[in-house]
């Protein structure tokens, strides 16, 4: 595929699992990929990448200037002949699919090959996001419901990443799923847990790989095995994971669905359900009667 394939998700929704799977799939090696060497799937909001392409230091720019310049940076980046990546350009991304004041999307369709959107139910996201950020669960519930919630928000200093507006949990998924001009593949975390083989075969088909021959299936099975939760957890315990937040105990916590049932209060569950009911219904986390199905 020509152009960038975005690996898009709200934080703590299985993006890293997807990246580890893809890295193992591409390597097709006899041993699992190193979780600290996911170089084929860098994050789109990297400040050094932005500065390098721009030729101006982003720490001297206003937020509005950075936002306005990002589309041009991705256009230049997508056609960078010096990009060393061999599997095409895949970028992890947590930003919502933003439309700028001039009506142009921040992530231009003309340099986009496609997007894999990884979706996880908002209850488990809230629990995991609180863990990840070393903040209490009520903070995470507010974040998922806050249209102005932004990653790397620091206004008093320069974070290693550019600021990333996320919108609400619903706003995030709706922004990406309604993006125009490129194909989008939806991968639900819950499906990846229940039926990893079919979920990841669909991903491989989407990126143009062989998911149907015996050899293709064997390669996918191996990549799934090498990215199982136990393997990721083991590697983190042995060597650490450089994408963990400093205050968090660990990055890979449960690797399961439904842990929210023991962690969220009825009030928190209702707050999230009420705020996100339409999207939860659309993506199968509520049934027609409004019952929670995840």
């Amino acid at each position, binding site marked *: 595929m020509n152009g960038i394939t975005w690996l898009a998700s709200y934080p703590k929704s299985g993006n890293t699992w997807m990246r580890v799977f893809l890295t193992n799939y591409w390597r097709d090696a006899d041993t699992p990929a190193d979780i600290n060497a996911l170089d084929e799937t860098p994050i789109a909001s990297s*400040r*050094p990448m932005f*500065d*390098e*392409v*721009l*030729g*101006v*230091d*982003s*720490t*001297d720019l*206003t*937020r*509005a*200037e950075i936002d*306005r*310049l990002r589309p*041009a*940076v991705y256009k*230049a980046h997508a056609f960078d002949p010096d990009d060393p990546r061999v599997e095409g350009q895949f970028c992890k991304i947590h930003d919502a699919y933003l439309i700028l004041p001039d009506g142009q999307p921040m992530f231009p369709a003309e340099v986009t090959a496609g997007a894999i959107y990884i979706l996880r139910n908002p209850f488990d996201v809230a629990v995991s996001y609180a863990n990840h950020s070393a903040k209490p669960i009520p903070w995470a519930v507010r974040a998922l419901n806050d249209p102005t919630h932004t990653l790397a928000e*620091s*206004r*008093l*200093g*320069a*974070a*290693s990443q550019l600021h990333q507006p996320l919108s609400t949990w619903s706003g995030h998924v709706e922004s990406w799923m309604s993006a125009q001009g490129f194909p989008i593949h939806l991968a639900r975390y819950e499906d990846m847990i229940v039926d990893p083989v079919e979920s990841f075969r669909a991903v491989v088909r989407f990126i143009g790989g062989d998911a149907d021959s015996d050899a293709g299936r064997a390669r996918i099975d191996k990549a799934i095995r090498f990215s199982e939760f136990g393997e990721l957890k083991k590697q983190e315990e042995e060597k*650490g994971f*450089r*994408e*963990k*937040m*400093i205050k968090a105990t660990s990055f890979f916590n449960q690797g399961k669905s439904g842990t929210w049932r023991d962690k969220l209060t009825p009030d928190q569950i209702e707050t999230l359900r009420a705020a996100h009911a339409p999207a939860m219904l659309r993506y199968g986390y509520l049934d027609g009667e409004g019952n929670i199905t995840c």
Partner: protein
Amino acid sequence: MPFHYTLYGLHVTSEMAIAGLRPADDDTTTPDVTIVYGMVPTAIADAKAGVTYSASAREFLLDMADVARYHVADGRQITIAPYPGVPDSTVRLFLLGSALGALLHQRGMLPMHASAIALDDMAILFAGASGAGKSTMAASLHQRGYPLIADDITVVYAGAQGRPIAAPAFPQMKLWAQSLTALDTPAEGLTRIRPELEKYTLPIGDGFQAAPLPIKKLYLLHAHNKPEIEIKPVTGMAKIRVLRTQVYHRRVMEYMGADSAHFAAITALAMHTPVAIVRRSSDLLRLDELIALLETDMRA
């Protein structure tokens, strides 16, 4: 009546006052660089284009939307066409950033993305990406009595016997509010680099190192997600590779074809300068501990 300044050993004349620069030691010599307001071309010939700029071997054109357009030619002249209503301080910011960086590349002077302080008549450089902590390290050491040589861009050249030398910039730093807080320096009375940003211009009164100094050591600053502070030497072939990544606006340099002009200076650094990677958490909670470790290490 033009203004005369000295920076990186160059005699610069400017038709506008540039706050923060050091007056020229001798304003009777022929200027090396002239800065004027004037007409800026809309395009330059045989250029490779980046997002905000285009560059050829002899020219550089930067268009900072709603701020100014800058034309840098032959390493000798910078022409600025500001957009209406822009504060001088904002025009100056990109003049002393991308435009100055391009001018140095055009002159074959190696600009490292580094801040530098003086220790016993030797220069210690702190390199790293924007936001890595270069200015905070330099400001913290300056507070402890080490003269400042440069903030953000340090020019390096090969001196006698191919030894690397650091050329002084100007007595001013740029610091974010959180760094000022960590340094117990109140932001009151300081000017923001831009009205919209919590980043300030900090003038350095006393303690500016105005003469070039041989380089003793270069630290490359990185953040990691552990509380521990690590200082690890870089040796062998990795050293040249690491040093190249710290050249200021490297892609602009490549578009200009200026790489080969920097060969002597990069080689001087690689051959004579110990390089170490410093990894620490990106918060500034343990700044004093980090500075104490660095002080011990840089004296070793």
